[in-house]
């Protein structure tokens, strides 16, 4: 065996190795060809065009397209100072997102750990947990924000004896008092209360994160757990010394996904603001300036999260 290996080594000239690499890289381009074409032909030109639009005045020429006239920073000035509601909306919605991000990550992590355990009815629980991922996105998120019969049910207007809905399981005002007195800190208690009243929203928007954590947990080799068991580690130790460090890279992935998801959600107020401007159609250049400002906010936010969390993460290799 070893002799054979030696012979092939001696025989194989350097050129052959290079050509294999070159062949590999050629097929790399072939496999990623759709996205290369998409980016080069559609996405990047459109992105640049959008940037140009945000710096110019658009006039619609029938049957031909848009005619642009360079304006400079006029649109951005309008977006920030004339359209004053926008900046406030962006800042307010961003601040409202912050606690949600952490609650979603913690919730997803916690639930993934529970769903990873063996118990009766686990399959059914898993199926139910992922119904919102599939169903309540896009227009359904908007519908859930609208008035529905559910509000009547949970407010007790329709029937007082039915304490069915999650918000009506416990009397909300009572809960509010308990939490405010227990935490003794208005900021903390408002975060906790926000999390409780938004429980449904958190469940619906943490599905993908749960999925990522769950597949991460499944990917941990059983040998590690067995070794820990032999050494006499308790469940608590196993969790903090094995499960947590092993899936910590996924926390970064999930954090960034959560940030993007919350910023781009159809019921985000800043997105709604831009959508209204787009649907209006009379100030397209203003709409593109607004969306570029929002894009920069998102990029900045994602960048900050990435820089902050990257250092905390343990990589296996």
């Amino acid at each position: 065996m070893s002799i054979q290996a030696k012979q092939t080594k001696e025989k194989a000239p350097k050129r052959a190795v290079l050509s294999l690499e070159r062949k590999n890289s050629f097929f790399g381009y072939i496999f990623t060809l759709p996205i290369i074409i998409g980016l080069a032909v559609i996405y990047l030109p459109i992105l640049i065009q959008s940037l140009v639009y945000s710096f110019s005045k658009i006039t619609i020429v029938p049957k031909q397209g848009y005619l642009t006239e360079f304006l400079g920073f006029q649109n951005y000035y309008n977006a920030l100072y004339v359209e004053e509601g926008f900046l406030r909306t962006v800042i307010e919605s961003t601040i409202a997102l912050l606690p949600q991000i952490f609650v979603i990550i913690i919730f997803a992590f916690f639930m993934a750990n529970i769903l990873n355990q063996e118990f009766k009815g686990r399959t059914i629980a898993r199926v139910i947990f992922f119904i919102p991922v599939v169903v309540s996105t896009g227009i359904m998120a908007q519908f859930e924000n609208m008035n529905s019969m559910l509000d009547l049910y949970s407010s007790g207007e329709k029937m007082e004896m039915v304490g069915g809905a999650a918000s009506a399981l416990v009397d909300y005002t009572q809960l509010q008092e308990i939490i405010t007195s227990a935490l003794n800190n208005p900021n903390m208690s408002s975060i906790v209360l926000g999390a409780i009243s938004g429980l449904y929203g958190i469940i619906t928007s943490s599905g993908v994160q749960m999925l990522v954590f769950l597949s991460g947990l499944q990917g941990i080799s059983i040998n590690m757990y067995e070794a820990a068991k032999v050494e006499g580690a308790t469940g608590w130790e196993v969790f903090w010394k094995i499960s947590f460090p092993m899936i910590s890279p996924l926390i970064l992935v999930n954090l960034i996904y959560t940030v993007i998801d919350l910023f781009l959600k159809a019921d985000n107020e800043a997105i709604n603001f831009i959508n209204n401007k787009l649907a209006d159609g009379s100030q397209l250049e203003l709409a593109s300036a607004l969306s570029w400002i929002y894009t920069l906010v998102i990029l900045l936010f994602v960048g900050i999260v990435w820089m902050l969390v990257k250092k905390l993460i343990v990589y296996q290799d």
Partner: protein
Amino acid sequence: MKNEDTMNVSQSPAEKKENKILKFLKSKFTFHFKKPRNPIKALKEVDWKRWKRKNLNLNGLGRFAYIILRFIIVFGICFTIIYPYIVKGIVSFMSTNDIVDSTVMFIPREGSTYFIEKAVVTMEYWTAMLNTALLSLAAAGCTLIVSTMVGYGFARFKFIGKNLLFFMVILTLIIPAQTIMIPLYSRFKWFFLGDLTNTFWPIVILALTGLGLKNGLYIYMMRQFFRGMPKELEMSAYIDGAGHFRTFFSIMLPNASNMMITIFLFAFTWQWTDTTYNTMLFPKLKILTNTVLNVTKTAENVAVDTTQQQALADTASLLLILPLLLVFLVAQKYFIQSIERSGLVE
């Protein structure tokens, strides 16, 4: 109480005890070249471990309490998720009198299909559903093909500019669709083959070039999946003389079937409810996300009282997602398997 006592003993450094420990440790460590650790600390650790083993293990009562707590949490969350759909389902079978009758709880007294019929008519349900199904199928199919290919390319090949390309893919996820909406609209409105707005083509073209809805996420998922597959599989295929495409189609794809079903499910259902491109690219297309808004917009429906409007909206939204729920229930087996098997690494 007993445990607290032992803790206290270890914490209060009694001299007698200390000497005893030192003696014990000396006898243990004299033959070692390593310096013995701080004896007090060592004792504390031993004691703490003993205490923990006694009290923090999940046997008996603690285990039982944990199981109960877990059941409450899981059941509560499942209930919170299902409850809105149950209410919607019940409301859609109520009559106009039932919804204002405060004695009617979950079982409608009269019961009628009034709201369902009305929602079906105002939504133009069957036409719209067929169109939506076609659109979602086309989009999901194209997305699946593209993301599988591209994901494999990213996972297994080295080429110049790969990292930059991947960064760009992630960037398409981050940049809101609103930013590119106006030039996108102008591209498709004045496309060289004619006006493509209000057709399926924009979605199909975007999906085929990997720019569809959340396509970056699917590419990322596929890349992670293929990275987790053992390289030996491909190596043996190459040695047997299979080319890159043959290996991809006959070795990698069959193994990725669960993941592919998951991605198809996501692409299909997210396209079904998506509203990103509605207002600009196909406002006149008869798809469910457009027609469902008729329920709240048409003058005939606005005229009736708010409770009826709410009931109608509930019925309409339930009808909107009913096909999705069915698809999910059919596909859930593969979906759950894909969660369980994505850690193929062993």
